[in-house]
């Protein structure tokens, strides 16, 4: 009898601990743990002003400019709502292209541009042959035009 009560008490303590831990973890997921921001958040001033952080988004088509006699490149990262200008000097990854996904890491400069020390290409989780991608794009275009109409 007594031993059973003790065991129940231990189980109760374990469950309570699990509950509290879960609550804390859930609470944690509501905040930004990995310093990853979208251009909108950056524009709203939510991103850290002093620290190093990451911005993820698409490279705006037509925004990529290379400096004449150095490795410096400038481009704009956008989440279609807001844009952030990025300055980077270094080699860009092979899969980096206008319209493609990217993750840049660095700090905000005083003029509001983002000085990246690392630029990475990020792609989505879709794998398909080029023809399929083309077909899909076609289908989407049709869909949007239909929607516009």
């Amino acid at each position, binding site marked *: 009898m007594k031993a059973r009560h003790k065991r129940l008490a231990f189980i109760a*303590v*374990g469950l309570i*601990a*699990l509950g*509290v*831990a*879960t609550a*804390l*973890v859930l*609470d*944690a*997921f*509501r*905040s*930004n*743990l990995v*310093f990853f921001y979208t251009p909108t958040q950056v524009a709203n001033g939510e991103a*850290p*002003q*002093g*620290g*190093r*952080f990451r911005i993820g988004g698409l490279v705006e088509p037509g925004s990529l400019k290379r400096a004449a006699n150095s490795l410096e490149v400038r481009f704009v990262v956008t989440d279609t709502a807001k844009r952030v200008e990025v300055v980077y000097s270094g080699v860009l990854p092979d899969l980096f292209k206008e319209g493609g996904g990217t993750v840049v890491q660095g700090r905000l400069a005083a003029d509001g541009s983002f000085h990246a020390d690392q630029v990475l290409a990020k792609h989505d989780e879709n794998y398909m042959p080029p023809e399929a991608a083309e077909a899909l794009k076609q289908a989407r275009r049709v869909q949007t035009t239909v929607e516009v109409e």
Partner: protein
Amino acid sequence: MNTLAILRWLLWRELMLTLRRRSDLVAVLFFFVISVSLFPLGVGAEPSLLRVMGPGVLWVAALLSVMLSLGRLFAADFADGTLEQLLLMPVPLALAVSVKIMAHWLVFGLPLVLLAPLLGLQFGLSWQEAGVLTFSLLLGTPSLSLIGAIGAALTLGVRGAGVLVALLVLPLYVPVLIFGAGAAAASAADISPQGALSLLGALLVLGTAFGPYATAAALRIALD
């Protein structure tokens, strides 16, 4: 005598023993201070750099100091035969283990926490940043003791235990380190550190609830 009274005596014993062997305590604290102060010396004291590195360096140093002190947690008791007597105490072993871990934290963890604001200010952290750093250490160092105890118990009596402990325990320390240093970095970047602190809290709760059981099991195995 009831369980609580026995556990109180155990705590008394543990504190007494470390007070008698103050050199261990001093060595660990000294190591913490040295490895933290080395950076301004070795890296060159450029203030902006120091401010960025500060929290991370303090956290890594705290983690390594706690790890250095883990050797003493059970090994001495094991060698002189008193661990057998602890296993035969008329209280649940997991409770006794909790008390030992608490004593370990009081002696080796708490002083680090108390020293942290001073060292933090040395790195040019603001009061607020130093505060968050200290709080993250306060939440995190008990987890380090709790996790470390499992490793220490698993490697009891094994040759090369000191290094093996590091091997077992460091991977489990990584999350504590990431969230601990992350909290401080967040506050340095003017973001709320609450997310990281919540995770540290979650780790602490889980560690307190389940760590002593794993440690107790490991001790029984070690003495088998």
